[in-house]
């Protein structure tokens, strides 16, 4: 499946929130949908889910107009909420059926998810009797319970302990490996890096960046190199390198140096020099910025 978002404009009153955004999501490749608070992520998702109608633009699935009722969609919103006074199993079944699941199938699936999170004893108890962490698991279960074709997760890892977070990562990987379509929105960049193959960065209602995460990192590295040596004296090393390679810029980065050769020197030339100087290399290679750096460099400049 290929979900295409094409030139979506959306205004509330006279204020335009989305200024013609376009990106695509490929099934089997988890897509990280990133942006600062108020960037337009929730509006995009709500338009996609047909809660709001966009002023213009279209959502296409495999080239045809995307109709939510034709697909099973799982959704985990950032601000979680289920019926606190209703029983866990009955409301999971309810949400599964609302999203297109059959009765028997929904009951079976709800029970399986409750068992998966080892919450069987709470199946027939009101949600409010569960701890906050366990309520979080039920929230996650409701997103998966209708066996969705398309899954939209907004901040899915918030509130999960490391063991449950790992468990959940495995569930997501398994879901994507079955050729399903996943849109993953989060501010926890480490999780996005671990889970997502592609990213899309939205800022003030515009798409700043979209594509394969690996390619983006490579491009954002701009041909720079990263060097870390044992017991490195960064100042001395910088001076030594700059003397040997005029015009090269060195920048300290987490106990290592980012070397910007401006295309004048090759990786092999640098390596030969380092070996010649008998420095013990800990890390040396092409520099790829992490997602956090990319996010800050692209979306952090304007604090509006």
């Amino acid at each position, binding site marked *: 499946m290929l979900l295409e978002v094409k030139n979506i404009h959306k205004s509330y009153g006279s204020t335009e929130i989305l200024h013609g955004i376009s990106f695509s999501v490929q099934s089997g490749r988890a897509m990280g949908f990133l942006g600062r608070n108020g960037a337009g992520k929730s509006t995009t998702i*709500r338009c996609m889910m047909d*809660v*709001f109608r966009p002023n213009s633009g279209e959502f296409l699935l495999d080239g045809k107009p995307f109709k939510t009722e034709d697909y099973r*969609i799982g959704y985990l*919103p950032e*601000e979680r*909420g*289920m019926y*606190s006074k209703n029983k866990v199993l009955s409301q999971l079944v*309810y949400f599964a059926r609302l999203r297109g699941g059959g009765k028997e199938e929904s009951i079976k699936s709800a029970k399986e998810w409750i068992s998966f999170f080892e919450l069987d004893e709470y199946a027939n108890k009101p949600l409010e009797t569960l701890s906050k962490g366990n309520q979080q698991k039920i929230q996650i279960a409701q997103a998966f319970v209708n066996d969705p074709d398309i899954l939209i997760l907004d901040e899915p890892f918030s509130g999960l302990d490391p063991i449950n977070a790992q468990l959940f990562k495995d569930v997501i990987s398994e879901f994507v490996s079955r050729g399903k379509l996943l849109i993953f929105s989060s501010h926890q960049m480490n999780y996005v890096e671990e889970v997502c193959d592609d990213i899309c960065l939205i800022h003030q209602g515009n798409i700043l960046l979209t594509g394969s995460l690996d390619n983006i990192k490579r491009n954002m590295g701009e041909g720079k190199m990263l060097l870390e040596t044992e017991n490195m004296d960064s100042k001395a090393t910088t001076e030594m390198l700059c003397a040997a390679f005029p015009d090269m810029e060195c920048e300290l980065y987490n106990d290592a140096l980012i070397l910007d050769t401006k295309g004048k020197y090759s990786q092999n030339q640098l390596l030969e020099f380092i070996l010649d100087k008998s420095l013990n290399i800990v890390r040396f290679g092409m520099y790829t910025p992490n997602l956090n750096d990319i996010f800050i460099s692209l979306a952090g400049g304007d604090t509006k």
Partner: protein
Amino acid sequence: MRNWKLVFEYELKTLLSKKSTIIPTIIIALIIFGVFNIPRFAGLFSSGDTEKEYNPMQEIVEDVGYVFEDSETGAKIKAALQLPDENIYENRDELVNSISDGENELGFVVLAPTKFESIWQDRDLENMAETTFSNLLQGIHAGTMLAEKGISLKEVNAIQNIQVEYTTTIMGKDTSINLLIAFLLLFVVYMIVILYGNVTATLIAREKDSRTMELLITSTKPTSLILGKVCASAVSAILQVAVIGLAGYLGFILNKDLLPDFIIDALSGTLTKEYIITYIYFSVVGYTLYLFLYASLGSMVSKVEDVSSATAPVVFLFLIGYIVSSFSMSAPNSNLVMIVSLIPFTSVMLMPFRTAIATVPTWQYLLSGGLLLVTTILLAFLSIKIYRQGTLNYGNKRGIVHAIKAAFNKE
């Protein structure tokens, strides 16, 4: 719309499984059933004596002593009451002693044909012996006076007690009897609308407050959600009323023979086919109308605590109907009452009430019923739009005018 039934089933199941629904229903049903059984239980608690006819003369014969200072009157009293000799004492002191000894509870000293003294050990509040004895003396004295004029007491009684016969023909309704039941049933609608209206508005506001709305609105269409919720509330209320009504009906059937005539008259006078049909139609459709209104108001607020202030105007609207109903008792066909009974929001109460106490022209039924139905349908559409707009609008509470304007704006 495909999920309408699912929402309906889930909401109805949730409502009916709530303790706050079950317990009051059972309690009210038991009370209603109990009320009809009062005559049966009243029989159990009273002593067997009540079966006998009450005889006021007993109070001035049993354990009552007499002293007759006027012997002529004394003889007449003795004959009238068939007093045994042991009840008659020679003088006041003997009588007082007999009372002090507990032989008698009360003593009468007859001083003259229309003058006596009563002597008590203890006098209880309900004892009417003095009045009864006084009446007896009055009767005997009147008999003596009439006899002197050659007229017998029987003849006088016959003249005084001539009965005037009359028959009543009521062409329309007997207001005096029907008011009680009509008011009671009006109150039922009032309570149901206010209670369930608030329940519905609170449920929706809570869904927004707890952000469950975010899941619901992305799972199904707002139309399915609001229709499912309103229908579930409507059916739940109808079931509650049906259970209470059934309890009342059973109580009535089981105790029909024991109930006082005025209750039977009031029930049979009010619960005519015409009234029942009017009541059911206006209550059900009107109740649905109010539920849609409450649902849209509930979706306009973001916090549960704002529900009561948001729904206050509806309570006010409903109260107008209730107050006009009270005024309509004296003039059920006046212009004001007629107009208010045609307006959809107040016809809910006024039409059944007028049907109970007056004859309403057919065209008014049709016009009022039609207006109510059309308004309910229009309001349903409007409330779906307000709900759709309101559900995801968190933040400040919006006024109804703003909400309606926003509902018709292009999203």
